[in-house]
């Protein structure tokens, strides 16, 4: 009995530590993504970017954070006070919750230890991600409506209709992946991509699902409200979009959650389509197994960079173009991809 309790508490402590590490790492990466974004933008526009705070401006995110915290925190008089405060809270909470099901590395067993670098391996992991993606709308909608400002409301409504529309195509592209891997668990999907064809090409889903990846990636851009899908905060039409009335750290939460979303969706893309923590030669011994998290983070950082690259390259969509792309292009393509995947796995077996 006491042995069992000891075992349980060991697992609980391990999971608690993992959650804490993940939380801190997520916040750190989100903070340095803002710095990275400004540096990438500067590079693309042939500027220098932030270079005052510390060497190469490396302390810039900390300076930004201090600025956000110490600014005047203003709540409009005619707003719905409670919901106005609740909005950014919900948004950042939902953004932080999604990373709980991502497997960061192989299960390590040895030396009397059992280390599982995943907060929880629910057997419906990918649906959990979809569920929290669909809840992300609430923070924006509540915040935008509670501001009692027409530009905020327009921004909130644009954001939510965009997110609802692109969720569908995202879900349909995920179905093809589930058909191939035969599991909804993210751990299972990652494990299914281990190994290589003919010893050279890694068995990643991207090579069997290129169309699905494209659809998923475009939808991820739309879900995170990143350019070219950043209509909800389109300055030229809507002042600041759904966060027009926000100031200080409440605004900081909205902006910060966008970077958290970017990090988490990059991690999900890497896990689902690019083999997760797998890389050629991971089976060559347990020491290489420890490289798994490093590889996954490298893939994730690459996708964060692609997100930024796209933002500073492409102009913004018009609203009807956005809806046309979502409903009349991506959804039919996703259904076609599903049919092709089903036919393919029927013809060629598993």
């Amino acid at each position: 009995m006491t042995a069992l309790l000891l075992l349980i508490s060991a697992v609980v402590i391990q999971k608690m530590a993992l959650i804490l590490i993940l939380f801190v790492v997520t916040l750190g990466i989100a903070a340095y993504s803002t710095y990275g974004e400004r540096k990438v933008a500067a590079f693309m526009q042939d500027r220098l970017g932030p270079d005052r705070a510390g060497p190469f401006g490396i302390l810039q995110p900390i300076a930004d954070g201090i600025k956000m915290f110490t600014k005047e925190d203003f709540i409009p008089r005619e707003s719905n006070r409670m919901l106005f405060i609740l909005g950014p809270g919900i948004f950042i909470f939902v953004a932080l919750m999604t990373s709980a099901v991502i497997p960061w590395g192989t299960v390590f067993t040895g030396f009397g230890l059992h280390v599982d670098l995943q907060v929880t391996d629910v057997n419906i992991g990918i649906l959990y991600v979809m569920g929290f993606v669909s809840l992300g709308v609430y923070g924006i909608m509540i915040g935008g409506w509670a501001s009692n400002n027409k530009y905020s409301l327009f921004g909130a409504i644009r954001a939510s209709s965009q997110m609802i529309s692109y969720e569908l195509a995202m879900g349909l592209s995920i179905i093809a992946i589930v058909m191939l891997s035969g599991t909804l668990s993210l751990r299972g999907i990652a494990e299914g991509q281990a190994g290589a064809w003919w010893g050279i090409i890694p068995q990643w889903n991207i090579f069997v699902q290129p169309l699905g990846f494209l659809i998923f990636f475009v939808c991820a851009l739309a879900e995170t409200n990143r350019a070219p899908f950043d209509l909800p905060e389109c300055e030229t039409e809507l002042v600041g979009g759904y966060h027009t009335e926000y100031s200080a750290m409440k605004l900081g939460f909205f902006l910060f959650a966008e970077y958290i979303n970017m990090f988490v969706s990059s991690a999900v893309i890497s896990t689902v389509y690019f083999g997760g923590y797998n890389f050629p030669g991971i089976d060559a011994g347990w020491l290489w197994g420890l490289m798994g998290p490093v590889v996954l983070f490298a893939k994730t950082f690459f996708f964060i960079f692609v997100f930024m690259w796209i933002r500073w390259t492409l102009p913004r969509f018009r609203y009807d173009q956005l809806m046309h792309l979502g409903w009349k292009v991506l959804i039919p393509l996703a259904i076609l991809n599903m049919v092709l995947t089903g036919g393919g796995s029927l013809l060629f077996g598993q």
Partner: protein
Amino acid sequence: MAQYIFLTLALLTVITALLMVFSKNPVHSVLYLILTFFAIAGQYVLLNAQFLAVVHIIVYAGAIMVLFLFVLMLLNLNEDSEPQKSSRWKIGAGITSGLLLVTLVGALKGSIQLQVPESSNPSVGLVENLGKVLFTDFVVPFEIAGILFLAAMVGAVMVGKRDLKV
């Protein structure tokens, strides 16, 4: 342990449902209803039906309630703009819902004699078993539901078309 979690969730469900009915602001009502859905999803998890819980959240909280919120925010209803209904309507609604309550209580009264099958298999609600059951024992209702959804989708497209040439 599971019993305490169940009681907490049940209490939460009832309280948020009551708050949903009694709050004056329709937007608050919708938000309380979302909390109710979460509490019910928690009950599904207690019954080992993780798939059902997540689908419940995605469909109800993630899609249907967003549309509700959409409409309410666009109309911006509040106490001033809402037309005051006469007390005749209120009495009628009270009697109707009271009758429904009597029916429900009557239906639940006999539930003590009901034999609840104690499932020996804890993984009965997991997605593998659900899929197997849906495609073997309940395949006909499942397919009929699919056709119903298709009909609803086609109907929505037809209604949405502005100038329909028949």
